[in-house]
């Protein structure tokens, strides 16, 4: 699954993986600015089916922005995004709206709808957007809830859940749409330390089941375990892109090395 490109400049042109398959997602020359401030500068990379890509980088480097671009939540200033081989017309909300049912996303801030029960939160997308039959959706929901051991909270409101439970439900809500790609943006960053674990374990299980995922996280131990590929971003530029094992043992750039140092627990000098 892991591809072993070790390069500081991103490849240009669609790169088939070892199996010769086309990538699921392919990004070329992506540029994004807020006003004068260029946040992503010529970003290119591929993600293949079943691959887990971990995005690392200091605060403000553009990780969230990049991941939001991959779901069409931001307008972009240039470049090309290709999903399942087809180019997504830039900044076309209608095209993205259709794609979003195939790309699931979970945010850092709890994003369950507080006015709806857990069940209603999960059903909303499949029934109202995908227009699937409620019976079938409910059956799938029950399965997913059992999987995360939250069946008993089906009729609870988000406010009755702990932070970790909320994030697991948010993941279930995205999974209920049967996405082909999942995007995770620091989903454990707002959690109490004790709850971080239950969410990360769910994500590990997904990775083991070959879900294609792009993950932004500050949990280094988790990143090390889950990453097929690591992409290190700074100032909107991909500084390096390596297999997870290589990145954590011998990062290619000084910047990445000092970043890894700063993330290790205090006092390990």
């Amino acid at each position, binding site marked *: 699954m892991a591809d072993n490109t070790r390069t500081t400049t991103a490849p240009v042109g669609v790169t088939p993986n070892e199996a010769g398959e086309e990538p699921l997602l392919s990004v070329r020359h992506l540029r994004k600015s807020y006003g004068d401030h260029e946040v992503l500068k010529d970003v290119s990379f591929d993600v293949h089916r079943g691959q887990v890509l971990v995005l690392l980088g200091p605060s403000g480097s553009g990780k969230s922005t990049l991941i939001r671009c991959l779901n069409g*939540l931001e307008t972009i200033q240039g470049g090309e995004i290709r999903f399942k081989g087809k180019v997504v017309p830039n900044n076309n909300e209608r095209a993205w709206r259709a794609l979003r049912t195939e790309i699931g996303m979970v945010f850092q801030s709890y994003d369950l709808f*507080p006015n709806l029960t857990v069940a209603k939160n999960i059903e909303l997308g499949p029934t109202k957007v995908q227009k699937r039959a409620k019976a079938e959706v409910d059956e799938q929901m029950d399965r997913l809830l059992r999987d995360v051991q939250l069946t008993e909270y089906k009729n609870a409101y988000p406010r009755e859940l702990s932070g970790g439970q909320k994030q697991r439900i948010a993941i279930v809500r995205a999974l209920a749409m049967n996405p082909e790609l999942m995007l995770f943006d620091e989903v454990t960053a707002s959690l109490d330390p004790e709850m971080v674990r239950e969410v990360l374990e769910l994500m590990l299980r997904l990775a083991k089941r070959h879900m294609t995922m792009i993950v932004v996280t500050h949990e280094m131990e988790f990143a090390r375990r889950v990453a097929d590929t690591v992409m290190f971003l700074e100032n909107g530029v991909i500084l390096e892109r390596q297999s997870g094992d290589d990145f954590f043992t011998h990062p290619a750039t000084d910047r990445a090395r000092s970043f890894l140092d700063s993330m290790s627990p205090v006092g390990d000098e």
Partner: protein
Amino acid sequence: MVLSAMTDPLHVTLASGMDVLFVGDNLTRLLSGLGTSVTVAGLALLAGIPLGVVLGALRTLRNPVLRAVLRLYLEFFRIVPTLVLLFLSYYILPRELGVQVDGVTVAVVAFGLWVSAEISDIVRGALISVSEHQVDAGRALGMSGLQLLWYVRIPQSVNLMIPAVINLAARVIMTTSLLLLISVIDVVTVGQQIMEANRMTHPDAAFWVYGFIFFLYFIICWPLAMIARALEKRAKERNNG
């Protein structure tokens, strides 16, 4: 200053002054005058709220022309005092419409338009106060603009709108005190009729009649304010929880 005025002869007149309220049908007349005021307020709200909700929702759209026009509409009502608005309608409405319009209708139209402007701002404010995270979460599920409005923005902002609307209702009721200036027989007009009819027997009627009307408005508007506050508090707790 008030206390220094409380000299002895006062107590004699106090008792007699209050009687005015209970002579003849005066009490019921005052209450029915108040009924007129509350009816005007009710009709104005009934007309103004739906219009305001639509305008408020339109103001969240991106169309710059529409937004500018609606903003101007709001600013007009923000700049013109309600009393002046009432006169504008009183003098201009019948002439422009070419039909007979009584004071009550004038008031309902004027207040209704004013209410719609205020409501549009309440609705817009509430709709855009829904956190962008929530809207993004809806978009990430593939929802369309209308679906976002219906499933995310509106349900998450009604509990902010309702207290504001109740507060506005109380304000509209209070503002109906201006009706006397356009010849509507409201509670104040009735009060003045009573003072005039009893000017010989109760020379201090003004104190009691105006005091009573003050009290009447208070017992209508205060509970509304309390309800609004309670709902506001609950909405805040919900949003945090």
